[in-house]
């Protein structure tokens, strides 16, 4: 089920809100977690009924393992290892089996073995990348003693499967949320902040991200001969905007939805296109993932404490795996290594943390371009396609813009792409949404009225008209 869909917006969400707050009034919140969990499972079943039992079973397995680890017995390492094997095994099987098979089949042939003919191809369970990492973080945190194991299965299951962040994050650390599971409070203020944040995210997704996405999809779908320099740059730029506004919109909606039920989730984005270097970029982009990799992979490998050479290796491993996490494709792996190389270069050249204000606009522009080229790699289906677009971007090739773009470069899309451009250019200077709606100014009033009276109805109309793309990160 997508957030920007009729069934979610006009049926599931109101039903969840009404049931939740009705039970609050009638039952004093005794069943609030159970209720949220049931709705979360229904949310998941809508899109992936065949994997619901998998989700429940793997949740149960980690719950039990967490309990065992929490008892602080000698076999804790074994339980952690078992949990990792189960979680990473499931992730690897569902997400990477097809890819691995595609890679080894030619080698089987070369080595004289028969190819595997009866492989029917795996379907990826929705959200597996996200809830797997959440469960791993829970197990490791319990093992490390940073948090206690959850005693109540329902509460733990809710942590894993809470619908706002179930299918596309942010990856929530158990230690950040454990107290909220039982001790959170709902209030008018929190609810309205959540509602506004949700509407803001919805508008970013439906209006801005999709406008950019329509253009990017056309460009990346063109034949090689039709891609000139203009089209290549147009596609790269619009995809750069699309992926940010799409993913940050989802995070906004997730944060907003969680707030409606009393949860406070951490921010997942912090103006990433205002970053002054790649290191800074990764402190601002998909924060929950980057910190997860930092805390559960980079630091356990040794981080930067084992010398420069090892640090470099750690960085490349972490970012290679980060790329692989996004999908089973060489382009994602290449994208990960691409960022790893720049991070390494910044370390070597000492560019990681000079004074923030030195040539900030220039550094932002350079960082933006590096990131933009990285997104081309990320978006392309193959490395050769990415290289073609790089070539077209760097070496002028005059090919008139294909007419297919005329259908998507209409006034509405151009307007919202312009909004994306202005927001990106002003990323460092413009106030954040949270700041706007928490500071009592006329701007806040205007923003609130516009959101509730204009954006929400217009986005609802767009959704009803069926003109919505799925979230990009939905497929991870």
């Amino acid at each position, binding site marked *: 089920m997508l957030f920007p869909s009729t*069934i979610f917006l*006009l*049926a599931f969400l109101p039903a969840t809100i009404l049931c939740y707050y009705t039970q609050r009034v009638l039952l*004093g*919140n005794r069943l609030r977690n159970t209720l949220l969990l049931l709705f979360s499972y229904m949310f998941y*079943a809508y899109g992936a009924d065949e994997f619901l039992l998998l989700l429940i079973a793997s949740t149960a397995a980690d719950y039990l393992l967490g309990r065992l680890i929490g008892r602080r017995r000698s076999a804790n390492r074994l339980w952690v290892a078992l949990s990792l094997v189960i979680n990473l095994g499931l992730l690897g099987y569902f997400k990477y089996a097809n890819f691995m098979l595609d890679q080894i089949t030619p080698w089987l042939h070369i080595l004289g073995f028969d190819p595997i003919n009866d492989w029917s191809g795996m379907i990826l369970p929705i959200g597996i990348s996200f809830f797997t990492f959440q469960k791993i973080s829970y197990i490791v945190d319990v093992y490390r003693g940073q948090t206690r194991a959850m005693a109540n299965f329902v509460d733990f299951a809710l942590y894993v499967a809470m619908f706002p962040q179930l299918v596309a994050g942010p990856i929530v650390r158990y230690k950040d949320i454990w107290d909220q599971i039982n001790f959170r409070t709902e209030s008018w203020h929190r609810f*309205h902040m959540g*509602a506004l944040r949700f509407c803001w995210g919805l508008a970013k997704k439906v209006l801005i991200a999709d406008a950019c996405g329509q253009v990017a999809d056309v460009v990346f779908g063109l034949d090689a001969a039709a891609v000139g320099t203009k089209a290549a740059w147009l596609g790269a730029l619009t995809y750069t905007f699309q992926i940010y506004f799409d993913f940050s919109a989802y995070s906004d909606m997730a944060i907003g939805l969680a707030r409606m039920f009393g949860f406070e989730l951490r921010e997942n984005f912090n103006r990433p296109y205002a970053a002054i270097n790649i290191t800074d970029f990764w402190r601002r982009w998909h924060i929950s993932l980057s910190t997860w990799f930092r805390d559960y992979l980079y630091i356990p490998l040794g981080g930067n404490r084992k010398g420069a050479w090892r640090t470099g290796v750690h960085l490349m491993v972490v970012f290679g795996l980060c790329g692989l996490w996004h999908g089973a494709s060489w382009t994602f792996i290449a994208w990960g290594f691409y960022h790893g190389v720049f991070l390494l270069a910044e370390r070597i050249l000492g560019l990681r943390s000079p004074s923030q204000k030195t040539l900030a606009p220039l550094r932002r522009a350079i960082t933006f371009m590096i990131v933009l080229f990285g997104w081309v790699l990320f978006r392309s289906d193959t490395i050769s396609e990415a290289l073609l677009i790089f070539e077209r971007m760097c070496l002028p090739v005059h090919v008139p813009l294909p007419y297919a773009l005329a259908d998507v470069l209409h006034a509405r899309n151009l*307007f919202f792409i312009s909004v994306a451009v202005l927001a990106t250019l002003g990323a460092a200077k413009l106030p954040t949404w949270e700041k706007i709606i928490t500071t009592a100014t006329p701007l806040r009033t205007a923003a609130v009225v516009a959101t*509730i009276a204009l954006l929400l109805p217009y986005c609802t109309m767009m959704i009803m008209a069926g003109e919505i793309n799925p979230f990009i990160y939905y497929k991870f």
Partner: protein
Amino acid sequence: MSESDQMNPPIKRCKTPRTLHACLISVCFVLLLILPMALGLFGWGNAPQHAGSPSKAPELETKALLEAEYYRAWAAYINYRLLQIRPLTQAKRWMDYHFFSMSEAADVQVGRNGWLFKRRSTDARRRGACDQTRSLQRFLLELETISHLVEKSGRCFVFSIAPDKATVYSEYISGAFAVEGCGKTFYDLLIDEHALTPLKCFVRLDHHLMAAKASGHLLFNKTEAVWNDRGAAVVAPALIQAIFDNGQRWASDPDDLASVLMDGASSPQARPHQKEGYYLSAAIIYGGSAIHRLLPHLAGPFSRIDAIVTDTIPSPNHAEHLSAYDAMVIIVDESELPDMRFDFDRLCRMLDIEALAEAQDRVPLKTISAGSKLSLSLIDQGLAIKSLGAEAFFNLPALPGSDGKTLRILALDISAAHADQLSWVIAGNADPTGTKSMPSKRTQLFLPLPVQPSVRMRINPGKTTGLFHLNSIKVLEFAHGMPHRAMPPVAQTRTVAETNPQAQSARSRQAAPPKNPANEAEPAAITLNDFYDHQIFQRQGTSSDTIISGTYTGIPTGIEARVLQYDNGVPVTPWRMVDSAPANGVFMGILTEVPQGGWYRLLVRFADRHGTFAQGDARWGIGILVGCIGQSNMREWFYTGEALHPHSLLALHRQGHWSAMDNRGNGAIAFGNRLIGKLGIPVGLLDYAVNGSGLRKEADWGMGYWSDRSEDAIYRQFIRGVAGAGGRLEYVVWMQGEADAARATITKSQYRSALARFIEMQVRAEIENAARQPFLPFLIVGMPNRPVGKDVPHQAIRDAQVAVTHEVPETYIAAISQDLDNAGRQHLAPEAYTALGLRTAQTVLYLLDEASNYRGPSVVGGQRIAADTFDVYLAHRGGFDFTPQEAISGWRASANGKFLPISSARRYDARTIRITLSKPAANAVLLYYLYGAMPEAQQAIHDNSTMELPLEPAKLKIE
């Protein structure tokens, strides 16, 4: 504060400004989300519903919570109930159009100042049509030929093109994108060609429109695709002038008194009008939607004017005949021009061009020579052709082509045992190839000969192996020259084989043809043209004749064939001579009376050298073929459910190919297995249903409609499939109706007449009947319960289907499906398809006298017992009692148009149902059983026969 209060503090009241602000926003947000659903649930904006027919939500089922389809059923129900989707979607589109000058509609382009254009037109202008010059030349040649022939028949012929709005008002087309290609549309190219070599029949209209536009007239409305009345009025005189091209200006319309006044005519011209001695009293106009506004302006001179909107001339969907008309006018919409087709053969037959020809030269059949993979033999009535498929051809002798003085048309009188595609190649011609559809009967085909001194042509009679009979070939001459048109060169010379992609198909699995087939020095060898694996031939009675063919080297005295059981090699038929005079390396013959059964394999050998033989690998059989057509619930017979295992003798024919049935499709498997189990012979199911397809054109929601007989239509694909399977069926199963019931598009009488016409004029006219009944049995499976929908239109379709069974012979309601619950979904559950398959098989067995009944009990009468109690009487067929005993569902009662609640419906005795209303009803009461779109069928009535057949729907009035 207690711990519980700490965990669960009360929500603050909205008293402080901050909290009030938060309250307000929160409440507004929730209300906005709830509002559409609430309005929908409370019926705001709902159309008035039929008494007692609420729209039904999917049933609440715990186990269904694990099924994605259950949620989607709810989503569909919610979307249906939220009627505001339509006004809100329209509001959004209004905003897009007025604020952003854009539209998401695929067929509409928004230009400057809000001008709307057909996207097809703007795309055509942008892409150009220079890659279609060959098509244009072909089109013009055909057009000129037709023009000559029509005028030769004494009729007037006018061809024109209604210019697109984009042509006349191009300045309103927005977009900064350069035109691709040559920048010329198909119309531009035609105009250029007309300038070089004028088309006598062509009337150009665009400069009339441009002149009127320059004078300040608005000829197209901003938001319409075709010209307005003013535009039509501007072009009409030019067309009339062309039709009455007698050098005199046509006098004013006698009904237009103002023009009569201005012309000063003393008396209006009387109808009919004269043209060169002929009266033009009736005209037929073919064209696109532009002709609608033209008709009032053209009608004046004629006493009768018929207009057909079609892209194929003559129309395949109407029964017009040119003999009824004096003038034939074609006004094609510019955007539809590339899609225009002439059914040249039908036109020629209508015009009886043989009678019109100034001269006819019969081509001696003995001058025709065999090419590859084909043998010819002269017989009394013509030339017998044994063709081995797409690579086979025969050569005609050199024939004179058309020239500046004479139009020549080749007329072939040919018979084919099966429908196929005839194709030809003309040596040395810039447009060498062509194809024509050939029906499975004797027919005449006409090929205009190109403008060249000598025409050397080779013809492939059909893509599939078969016997053809060429009765005669003539060259018809008409004393009207054809201009030479320069055809763009082909990229490479193509052979007959190259024109037929299926030449490489599995159909011709034989080895390469012998280099010198009649060479005595070649070693003797024989190759069999094997059948398709799992191919089933329709039986005729209890056997069937099959065509055996192949190639050979050596000099056999004859070729013999026999049939073996596939599994154990036991002979099914003895050795029989199939071709006693093989020639040219090709043998072909008919193996008669192969008994029904399977799987078989073929064996062929030289009659004089038994050691030279070949064995087929394919398994095939003789059995029953059943065509399955309709919409999605028919298609789901083949896709829903994996619980059953298909019998090994069950095969599937889909998209022109045979295959073994896999374990998907409970309905098809249950149907086939039951028949095979009872009859012991193979059953082939032809799966040609199309999701969402309608019967009538009005019910075409984008997936096609079955009454459409045009070339690319879904019906034509079915017929091609049947032709590929041999052209004969024993039964046709039809499950359709939802598309026509949707939005109350089709009335009962419309559906009834359309279905009757479809059965009699289409299916039975084009498919050979292999059943023992006098007409091809047409088995209707009733529509199931719907998840949404209005009762009246759905009942209309059900009633129409029942009515057709009474009017059209050998038409049956083979199975009822309303008693099968679909849990609120579009399609039935897998078990329900199994039941349908079994019920339909029972009907087939009944028709074969293998079963004593196929229908369940029916209502035969009723009686009022008390003011609130009624007895309904049943007549049993297969069983003698029924279930359930209590809480029977599916009944409704009404009086004076109002729904009457039923408090109980129960079994009174084996033949009586007692229905008690909640309140007494003084007036006559109407009782319905399984009525409408979604009757309550949880506890429907079934008899106690082994089939547990349902009580048939009923409606009765009890006083």
